[in-house]
């Protein structure tokens, strides 16, 4: 029984790694369709990864060992997070290893090293990307912490598996004002942390409009492959958190194969729906000026604060 749990953990990691490029490709394909063109097929990112792993790495002569090690740290920390996020089964075998706070700080570990890797080659664009990325990450932190607080209040725990099982046990809590406000706040934070419009344009070529892209301008080959895969994995993780922490139905609570298959299908449907919503948002809005982003994140902070207060008062 316990062994099945650990096997499922590894299967979940593999599933996440497999789905991540597809999700990013799906969002890209939808946006292309909204731009009235055929666009690349949704499985294009898989081809991109295969190609990048076949290219050589060209490194700047100013870069140090940090530049070479950073992609592995970023990828490892993001994969570690997938061990903790309930994707197809809750609670996970390793649920006690980490809670939402651990997830947040592991993602911060990846961001920290990505920012340092942007500064390493000594380019102005890398420094700019690092500076902007850390600003957005720092200002998004309070919202995430308060959203965690409001979720933990109703579920009685910050461990993800327990939150999901509590919500499945009393579904009325998912439509409580606290939860809905927390969902809205976390949606805005998802757009900020995964580098989507209106905070950052993932498809831009103009360096002055880049945040995430600017830090990886010097990367190539297998390093770039690892970093891109990690950023798609981060998108998948955030979508999974939004989906399974707020709309948990479909997730398996036993190791029964039928339940697990249903859970995989439910996950794919939820990710596709969220991908569709993000594609619509990205088509509708224009990118915010960098110094307006704190206003957006401030609004999400207010939403999160309201979420906590209402969870408190309505307990």
């Amino acid at each position, binding site marked *: 029984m316990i062994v099945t749990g650990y096997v499922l953990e590894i299967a979940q990691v593999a599933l996440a790694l497999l789905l991540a490029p597809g999700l990013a490709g799906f969002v890209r394909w939808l946006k292309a369709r909204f731009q009235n063109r055929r666009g*690349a097929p949704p499985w294009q990112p898989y081809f991109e990864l295969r190609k990048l792993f076949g*290219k050589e790495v060209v490194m700047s002569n100013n870069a140090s060992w940090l530049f070479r090690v950073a992609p592995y740290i970023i990828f490892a920390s993001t994969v570690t997070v997938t061990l903790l996020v309930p994707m197809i089964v809750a609670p996970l075998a390793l649920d006690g290893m980490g809670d939402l706070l651990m997830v947040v700080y592991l993602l911060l570990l990846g961001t920290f090293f990505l920012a340092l890797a942007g500064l390493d080659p000594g380019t102005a664009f890398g420094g700019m990307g690092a500076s902007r990325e850390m600003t957005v990450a720092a200002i998004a932190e309070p919202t995430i912490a308060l959203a965690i607080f409001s979720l933990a209040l109703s579920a009685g725990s910050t461990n993800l598996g327990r939150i999901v099982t509590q919500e499945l046990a009393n579904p009325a809590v998912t439509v409580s004002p606290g939860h809905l406000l927390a969902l809205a706040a976390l949606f805005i934070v998802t757009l900020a942390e995964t580098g989507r419009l209106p905070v950052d344009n993932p498809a831009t070529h103009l360096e002055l409009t880049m945040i995430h892209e600017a830090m990886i*301008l010097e*990367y190539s080959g297998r390093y770039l492959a690892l970093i891109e895969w990690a950023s798609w994995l981060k998108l998948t993780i955030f979508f999974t958190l939004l989906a399974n922490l707020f709309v948990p139905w479909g997730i398996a609570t036993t190791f029964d194969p039928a339940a697990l298959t249903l859970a995989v299908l439910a996950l794919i449907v939820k990710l596709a729906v969220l991908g569709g919503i993000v594609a619509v948002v990205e088509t509708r809005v224009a990118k915010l000026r960098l110094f307006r982003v704190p206003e957006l994140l401030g609004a999400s902070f207010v939403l999160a604060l309201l979420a906590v207060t209402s969870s408190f008062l309505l307990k």
Partner: protein
Amino acid sequence: MPALFKKIFQTGIVTEPLGPDEAEIIQLVGQVNQKTQRLLGRALAIREVDAGSCNGCEIEITGLTGPVYDSERFGIHFVASPRHADMLLVTGPVTRNMEVPLRKTYEATPDPKLVVAVGDCARTCGVFKSSYAVVGSVDKVIPVDVFIPGCPPEPADILRGILAALDRMPKKRI
């Protein structure tokens, strides 16, 4: 917002199908390495380099990413940094000031890579031939795989030239 999406759905997909190179415009310079073509065939990242052109070719190239010609359906997209690129799309007669930057861009691109030269200027220096400001055609500075003649060439021809380098030239209209 409903008005925007109503318009999107009313307009529909406007991408035009791409046919083969009937007018035999594309010029391949020798055989491209097959392993390279297999690696880059499905997902190509292009870095465009303006080595002194009049921007006529650039305007045609920007049409490539639009809805009508949609290079992305072939897995081709444009990138900002040559470190991310697999192919350099070079325009213009190489002017003296752009010779070193062009070489540096070529060095900055990781192997395996391809070079496609767009326009008459890139092939023969066009109307700027023997000017004091011009070094020569692109293949005098970096090795070129495909020439696309024209002043400027049509976006469809540019797309066909890129696909020819990848050995993915369409056999019929797709």
